[in-house]
C-alpha cells in the first residue's frame, strides 16, 4: 500500500527554483532514500512533506489525505515525524523533557510512558544521561535523542535528514543499524543522506537527485551497482 505519494512538486525560495518537479513514492514498511550532492533538493523535499515549506505546484498525499497547504503541526498529528538535519534537540531541556516533547500531540499519557521505556531500551546511552541537559550530549547521542523524540510520537512515517552527518564512523554504523530496528517495528522511513553507499545499502528503494530533479530511481542495490551512481558519488 502506498503510504506517501509526492507528485511533481515545485518549491521556490523567493525566485530560486529549488525543486523542479519531484515525484517520490513510499510504500508502507519500506526504507526509501533520497541521495544526491549538496543543494540537490533533498532536505527541501523533506521540508515540503512535513509542511515547513509549501510547494507552489504539485500534490503530496499521505494515505488518502492531501497535505499541500496545511500547517506543519497538523501534518505531525497525522503521523509524520521529521528529524531535521543537524540534530536539533532542545538543548536547554533534559533528555527526559525532550522525550516528553516528542509525545506532545498524544493524549494517551500512560502509553507514552511505556514508549519512553522502550526508547531507553532502544538507546541505552540515553538512559545513562537521562536527567542531563540535551545540549551537553555528544553528537551521536544527540542524534539518538532526536530520533527517539520523533519516535515518541508513534509516527507511521519517519523523515530523517542526514542522520550520519558529522558523526564518527562507529556512530554512523550504529545509526544505520538502528534504522533497521525501527523498520522492524513497522515504521516507514524516508531517509535523506549524503553518505550514498550506506544509505543505498540499507534502503529498499532510492532516488538520485540533482539540482532539483530526480535523475535516477530504482532498488537500493541496483543503484548501488549503477555505473553513473558509482562515478558520481562513490568515486
Amino acid at each position, binding site marked *: 500500500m502506498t503510504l506517501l505519494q509526492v507528485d511533481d512538486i515545485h518549491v521556490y525560495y523567493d525566485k530560486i527554483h529549488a525543486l523542479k518537479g519531484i515525484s517520490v513514492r513510499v510504500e508502507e514498511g519500506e526504507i526509501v532514500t533520497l541521495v544526491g550532492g549538496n543543494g540537490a533538493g533533498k532536505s527541501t523535499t523533506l521540508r515540503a512533506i*512535513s*509542511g*515547513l515549506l509549501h510547494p507552489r505546484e504539485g500534490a503530496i498525499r499521505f494515505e488518502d489525505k492531501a497535505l499541500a497547504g496545511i*500547517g*506543519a*503541526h497538523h501534518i*505531525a*498529528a497525522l503521523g509524520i*515525524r*521529521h528529524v*531535521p538535519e543537524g540534530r*536539533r534537540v*532542545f*538543548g*536547554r*531541556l*533534559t533528555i*527526559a*523533557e525532550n522525550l*516528553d*516533547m*516528542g509525545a*506532545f*500531540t498524544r493524549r494517551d499519557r500512560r502509553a507514552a*510512558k511505556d514508549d519512553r*521505556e522502550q526508547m531507553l531500551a532502544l538507546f541505552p546511552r540515553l*538512559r*545513562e*544521561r*537521562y*536527567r*542531563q*541537559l540535551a*545540549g*551537553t550530549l555528544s553528537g551521536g547521542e544527540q542524534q539518538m535523542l532526536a530520533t527517539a*523524540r*520523533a519516535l515518541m*510520537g508513534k509516527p507511521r512515517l519517519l523523515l530523517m535528514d542526514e542522520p550520519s552527518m558529522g558523526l564518527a564512523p562507529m556512530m554512523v554504523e550504529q545509526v544505520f543499524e538502528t534504522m533497521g530496528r525501527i523498520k522492524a517495528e513497522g515504521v516507514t522511513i524516508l531517509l535523506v543522506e549524503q553518505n550514498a553507499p550506506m544509505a543505498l545499502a540499507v534502503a529498499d528503494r532510492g532516488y538520485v537527485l540533482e539540482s532539483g530533479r530526480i535523475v535516477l530511481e530504482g532498488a537500493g542495490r541496483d543503484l548501488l551497482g549503477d555505473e553513473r551512481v558509482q562515478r558520481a558519488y562513490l568515486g
Partner: protein
Amino acid sequence: MRRIGIGRTGAWVTWRRTALVGLAFGAGALHLAAVGVLLMLHQRWIVIDTLSLGQATVLLLAAGAGAMAARGDGSRWLQGALGGVCAVLPLALLSRAMDALTLQPIFIALSPDLQAMLTLGLPPAAATPALLALGAVAGLVGAGLRAAPRLSRALLPGAVAVLVAGVFQELIQLMLQQYEGPIGAVRDFVYTWEGLTQEGAITVFLVVTLLAQLFGRATQGRVAAMEPARRRQIWAGIALAVIVVLPAVAGSYIGQVLMLVGLYILMGIGLNLEVGLAGLLDLGFVAFFAVGAYTTALLTADAPNALMHLPYWAAMPVSVLLAVCVGVLFGLPVLGVRGDYLAVATMGLGEIVRVIVLSDFGAPLLGGAQGVLHIPKPQLGSYTLSSPVALFYLTLVAAAIAAFIAWRLENSRLGRAWMALRDDEDVAQALGINLVRSKLLAYGLGAAFAGLAGSIFATMLSSVYPSSFQLLISINVLALIIVGGMGSLPGVILGSVVLIGLPELLREFGEYRYLFYGAVLVVMMRLRPEGLWPSDVRQRELHAGDETAALDAGADLLPARE
C-alpha cells in the same frame, strides 16, 4: 647583573600593578567629583558633623583600593597604603589644579564647595598631605580587613547597618515619626533631622554587631547544613513577610513605592511569559499597560469623554480582556519575525499605540495630551480603597494571583510548547506544536497581566495621560526580568525591588540615581549574567558540567522505573 635586573623587573611589575589598581579607583573618584555626585553626597550626613556620605564614599574607595592592591605576603601593608594613596591622589591633584586654574566654567561641578570638601577645611599646604594620609590609612584598613576575613566578617554587619541607617535616614525617620513613647525616644536618641547622631551611630554599630555575633553563632551551623533550595524558601518567606507587613507599619510613602514595585512585578510576570518562556523579545509591552489603563479610565471616569461610569470591579476584567485582544492583534503582524528583528518590530507597535493615544484623531475619545481625569477609586462594600497602602494590598493580591497563574502555565502543556518554540521553531512544529496559536497565546496572556497592571495604575493615579506610557517602561520591565533572572518568578520580584524600588527610595539624590541604576546594570551583567535569582533551567545550564562530572564518577542519576 642580569639576575638583579630580573628581580627588579618582578618587583617593578608588582608595584606598578598596585599603583594601577589604586589609580583605577582614583579615576572613579575623580569621575564622581567631576560629574557632581561627590559634592551632592557630601551634602548628606551619615553621622552628623563627623562623616558625610561623600567622605564615606572616598574612604570606601580608598579602602577598596587598599584591599584589592594588597596581594603580596611580605609587603602587604605597604601595598595597601600605596593603593589607598593612589586612590585619593587624583582628587588631591584636582584640588591643587582648582587652586591654580579656573575649572568651573568647563566642569560646572568643580565648585568652591567641592574644594572645601577636598581640603577638609585646612589651608592648601596642609590639605594635600592630609588627604593623602587619610587615603593611606583607609588603604591600610582595607588591606587589614582583607588579611583578616573573620574580623571583617564580624565588623561588616554593623558597618552596613550604620551606612543604611544613614543613607535612608529620611525614610526611616518618616516611618518612625508616626510613633510616640519608647520608639519616639529611640528615634530622638539615634537621629537628628539631618542624620545619625554620633552616639546614635556608635549605638547602632554596637547593637547590630552584637546581634550579628549572637544570632550568627546560633544559626550559622544550621544555615550551612540546609539545602540551598530550602535556604531559598526561607529567604523568600522572610521577604514575603516583610513585603506584606511593611507598608502597614511604615506608612504611605513606602506603600506608594511598594505599589509601584507591585505593578512592575505584574508586568514583569506578563513579559516573562513572552520573553522568558516563549522567547519573544517584546519591546512594545507598554502598549498593553496603556490599553488596560485607558479602558479602565474610559469605563469608570467621571469625565465628559468617559463611555460609562461602571464601578472599578466591573471595569477591571473588561480592561484585562481588551488587553488580551490587543495582545493577539499585536502578535499577528510579527508572527514570522524572530529575535532582534522582533524587538524592533514590537517597539514600533508599542509606539503606534502611544501615538494614537496622543493624536488628534483619538482625542475626542481619549482626551489627547490631557488624558482622562477623575477616575474613581475601587470600592469594597462601603470602604473606598483610597490610600496608597490599601491600593498596595490590591496590587499584592493581583500579583499573587498572577504569579500563581504564571507558575501553573510554566508547567502546563502550553508552557512546554512555548519553551520548545523558544529553542527551535521548526522542530517544535514538526512535533505537532501549533506555532500560530502558541505565539498568539503568549502575546495575549502576557498582555493580560500588563492590562491588569494598567487598570490598577489608572485608579491609583486617578487619571491617565499619554506621557505615562513611554518606551522606557517596556525597557524597564525587560531590564528587571534580565536582572532578576530570565524565566524565573522570584527573579521578577527581586528584579522589581532592585530596579524599581531602590531608585524610588533614593529619590532625594535626584537624577543622579540613574547613574547608580546604570552602574548596577553593568556590574550585574558582568558578575551575574544569569540574574539575581535564576530559574532552575538556567541554573541547570550553568551547572551542566558538574552533573556530567558526577555521572562520569558513577553517580546514580537514573530515573526510577515505574
